[in-house]
């Protein structure tokens, strides 16, 4: 039990409790001690030393992020000597950091820049040698630039603690210390799942997505191409943040309009193909439930999760749904069904996916997903990238008049919208599976047990007198916990949803950076983005995938029925075990 205590900050007494660190207590009292490596969802690193304070009776400064408060503690956060020490520490970071703010991707949205400004570093005293490393451009999704790295270790911690992938670590010592994958292997050859959480938490531009904006601008100017965009559910829930709007404002129709201004000929909704996914996945689940295939069935929408399962859980591959992700389903039907409709050569179609995700860039080039030898998704740009493109092209997303998606793949059910939030795929699948199995409509469709940000969520429901047990995990670390349990007790669940990123797609590695008053991975922000999607769902009259008229149409006109031969060719795929560098043995990962 926490005890009430009195501490003194800068000479004045304050009430607080003894279960807090100095930083937490100070935060509650309105003293925001400067900080850099600290992140509330990650372990305490104590590395940057920016958050130092003076505590009377202690010989040295004390890192406020790590030190607990105690009764009568006399803390000083702002003495002359301390201000200078803190300033000098931040200058030391700057002295070993490129001075290219104006040409940096994170200019005006960089934590180090903001920190240096608030420290009042107007002159440099200690300049000297600065590091020089090559950028690692090998990954399809993530660019690593060690020159910009300030060694705060957030990426290392998010990758090991939140994601349990352990793709990154510190190497070498002293001034030569650098964060890199094991053996300094090219990122493409490592266990990196391309989830992009390192980008989200990086305070500088040491990790950024592989940028495809210039390529897209060029292709948008190509008169020979039919330019088609699709937008993932979570993009509309977050893109406003990049334009200064608060988290949770949904910008669906504005984004459609803005993309048309950018030069796209057609804008389709990935929520449509999410509905399509549900049709196929729910049918597949029912087949497995009837004995055709392994249970529990595990979802396959998340590209980071797919790489993860291939390298860490090859034994569970037969359990993974053969369904492609909504993005790849959409691209496949764009280049077949839709190409046919508009009578165009699929080779002349540019299929662009606007995604909240960096791993989708990896998914797009997976050879298994090609259709008739053609890559179905030609380019993937993240929410961040597309927001930048809009700004660059002078498109005012905030004030633009909204427009509707194009037919015949623009209508979606509420079930498709909630795909972006953790638990959403499961909820959507249940809505349809229930009806496909029982022939009755599930009335109580909001399944609260599997909503929200708990790491692992469980639910059960009765379908035709049979109890179906489901589980949901988001973030690859939670997935690890859940699947470890499944490995021990395979009969525990029937259906499992896994999303690679914390919060699901709304917390994807391609979403807008945290602004001035927020932090990356902020639970409040993730909740609001998810709430925007649940709001879309609530406001729809059609909330079950199989009721979507566009879906009914595509089955009627083209696919026939779920799991048909055409479906199998276009909408399903296969996965295989992979052994990249740096696989951590299970017993070490278990720690």
């Amino acid at each position, binding site marked *: 039990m926490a005890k009430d205590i009195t501490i003194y900050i800068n000479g004045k007494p304050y009430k607080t409790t003894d279960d807090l660190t100095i930083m937490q207590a100070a935060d509650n009292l309105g003293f925001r001690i400067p900080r850099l490596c600290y992140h509330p969802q990650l372990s305490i690193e*104590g590395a940057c030393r920016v958050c130092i304070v003076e505590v009377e009776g202690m010989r040295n400064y004390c*890192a406020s992020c790590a030190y607990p408060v105690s009764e009568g503690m006399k803390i000083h956060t702002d003495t002359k000597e301390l201000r200078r020490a803190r300033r*000098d*520490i931040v200058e030391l970071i700057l002295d070993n950091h490129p001075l290219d703010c104006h040409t940096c991707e994170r200019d005006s949205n960089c934590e180090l820049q903001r920190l240096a400004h608030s420290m009042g570093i107007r002159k440099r005293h200690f300049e000297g*040698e600065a590091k020089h490393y090559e950028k690692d451009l090998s990954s399809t999704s993530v660019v690593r630039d060690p020159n910009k790295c300030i*060694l705060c270790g957030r990426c290392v911690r998010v990758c090991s603690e939140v994601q349990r992938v352990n793709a990154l670590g510190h190497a070498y010592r*002293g001034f030569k*210390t650098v964060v890199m994958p094991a053996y300094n292997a090219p990122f493409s050859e490592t266990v990196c799942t391309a989830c992009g959480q390192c980008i989200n938490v990086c305070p500088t531009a040491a990790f950024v997505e592989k940028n495809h904006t210039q390529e897209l601008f060029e292709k948008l100017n190509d008169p020979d191409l039919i330019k088609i965009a699709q937008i993932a559910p979570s993009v509309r829930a977050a893109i406003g943040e990049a334009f200064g709007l608060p988290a949770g404002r949904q910008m669906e129709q504005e984004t459609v309009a803005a993309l048309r201004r950018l030069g796209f000929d057609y804008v389709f909704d990935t929520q449509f193909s999410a509905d399509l996914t549900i049709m196929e996945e729910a049918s597949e689940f029912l087949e497995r439930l009837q004995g055709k295939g392994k249970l529990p069935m595990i979802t396959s929408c998340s590209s980071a999760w797919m790489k993860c399962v291939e390298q860490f859980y090859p034994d569970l591959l037969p359990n993974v749904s053969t369904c492609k992700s909504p993005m790849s389903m959409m691209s496949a039907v764009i280049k077949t069904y839709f190409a046919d409709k508009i009578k165009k050569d699929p080779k002349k179609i540019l299929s662009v996916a606007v995604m909240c995700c960096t791993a989708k860039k990896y998914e797009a080039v997976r050879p298994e997903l090609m259709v008739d030898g053609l890559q179905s998704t030609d380019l993937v740009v993240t929410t961040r990238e597309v927001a930048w493109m809009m700004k660059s092209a002078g498109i005012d997303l905030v004030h633009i008049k909204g427009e509707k998606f194009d037919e015949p793949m623009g209508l979606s059910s509420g079930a498709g919208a909630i795909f972006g939030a953790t638990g959403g795929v499961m909820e959507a699948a249940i809505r349809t599976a229930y009806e496909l199995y029982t022939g009755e409509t599930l009335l109580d469709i909001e399944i609260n047990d599997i909503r929200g940000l708990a790491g692992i969520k469980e639910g059960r429901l009765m379908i035709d007198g049979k109890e179906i047990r489901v589980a949901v995990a988001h973030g690859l670390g939670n997935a690890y916990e859940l699947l470890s349990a499944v490995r021990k007790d395979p009969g525990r669940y029937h259906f499992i949803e896994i999303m690679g990123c914390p919060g699901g797609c709304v917390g994807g590695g391609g979403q807008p950076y945290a602004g001035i008053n927020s932090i990356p991975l902020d639970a409040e922000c993730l909740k609001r983005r998810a709430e925007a999607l649940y709001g879309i769902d609530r406001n729809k009259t059609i909330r079950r995938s199989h009721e979507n008229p566009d879906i009914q149409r595509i089955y009627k006109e083209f696919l026939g029925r779920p799991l048909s031969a055409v479906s199998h060719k276009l909408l399903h795929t296969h996965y295989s075990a992979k052994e990249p560098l740096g696989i951590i043995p299970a017993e070490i990962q278990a*720690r």
Partner: protein
Amino acid sequence: MKKEYVITLCDGPTCMRNRSKELESVIQQELQRHDLQEERVRIMLSGCLGMCSKGPVMIINPGYTIYGKVAEKDIPEIIQQHILKNQPVARLAIQEDHLYNRFFRIFGDVKFFGKQMRIALRNCGIIDPEKIDDYLSVRGYEALAKVLTEITPQEVIGVVKKSGLRGRGGAGFPTGLKWELTAKEQSDEKFVICNADEGDPGAFMDRSTIEGDPHTVLEGMCIGGYAIGAKKGIIYIRAEYPLAIDRIKKAIAAAYENGFLGANILDSNFSFDIEIRLGAGAFVCGEETALIHSIEGSRGMPRPRPPYPSVAGLFGKPTLINNVETWANIPVIILDGADWFSSIGTEKSKGTKVFALAGKINNTGLVEVPMGTTLREMIYDIGEGIPNGKKFKAVQTGGPSGGCLSEEYLDTPIDYESLAKVGSIMGSGGMIVIDEDSCMVNMAKFFLEFTQNESCGKCTPCREGTKRMLEILTRISAGKGVPADLDKLERLGTMIKKASLCGLGQSAPNPVLSTLKNFRDEYEEHILKKHCRAHVCKQLFNYEIVDKCVGCGACKKVCPTEAISGELKQQHVITQSKCIQCGNCFKACKFEAIKKV
């Protein structure tokens, strides 16, 4: 025939007064009574043994049993028990014969050893470290037997606390308190760790202890494990110590074989296992949290404390971590008692400390002295001064992150507080003597280079700050320093000391700050006069040819830049603008005609 026993009787004045002469005749009568010929037992009268307060004193060898206040009525018992049955009469033996005495009985008449006091190193050099029997013959594992049979864990901790022993790894944290804190924690599993990751360049006390007396470390750890309730010990030793590793492995095997390790040690309820882990040679892994990370299989990087290892250490379990030398003191404290141990040393620093004496000193080597010995005694008595008649300039204590102390501090007693007060540290016991041929700027640069290279790279002040300090020092020694550089060094150094995450960073600026304080004139000379008085910083002195030159031309031949000119048999001249200070001419001259100025 070989004599079986030698009985030595002190016939110094005090013992004489206490009737030692009469004792002699009683002894002879007794020997005759038992028909013990003189061939088997020799009676020897010695000069004063110096233990006058215990007189009359009688020593029976072999075994060096000292009997004090011997009365005539005791003699029959002594002959009966000790000579006939080889069982010394414990009741009459003098108890103050401390473990370390044996060492000095053998080596004490060498001046180098005579001023020392060897507790941790008591057995090094006198027993065969690979034979457990040798260790047993010097009361080995007796302390363990004693705690397992007579003393509760709480009492063991009480003894260690009372002894005043402090951590010998450098920081000087009270050992007993550490034991108490770890014992207090409730946990299903606890660990004991021996820190043998000796990283200071030139320091080798931990290696020597393990190489010379591995069992004492094992015994200490067992006692520690018993005291805190741990069942497992780990020795973290650097892989560059192959002999030490080999010996400790053999010692562990022998201890298991003889029942001093494993299940139910000495038929008690206490079980304890020890295994070793090899360190890959990172200096920072001597820091306890980094060491723990390394054992866990992670990169050796420190983490902020609290929680301390006593609460959450190895694999998150309460862990007691002590240095080799600390462990080696434990059996002695148990056997000879806390009172005796705490009678050695100063008020706050008890016992002895081992130092690796190195640098410009006549007797380099391993030295164990009581706390409170002054630096002067260390350097001039034990070390026998500076070689080649050179002048003493400074002494650096505590390894690469210690401070450099000038002559005025030579009477500083060696203990934790006194060294800290004058800007240095005890450290793990490095001691480097510096003479007038060394440049203090260069010294500071050298040590900082080491700590910068060995910084784990985690915290900003240590990683970036020491690099900037090193750049400034390099600038100064290249003659490019400006007066503001000294302020920058002080500003950075003070900040790094106070803001760094672990002890490495917190002490890394010490060599710079202490030389800035004690040898500021040398820094100023480098900056303002562009001169290095020790002729070490290459850019800051010139080679010149003086009139001793016979014109042999040897210098001219080796000069790579043709900076030397002169006719044969005429004095040569160096053209300074061409000279690159390579020093070839200096080495080539056989007539001492080339001077550094």
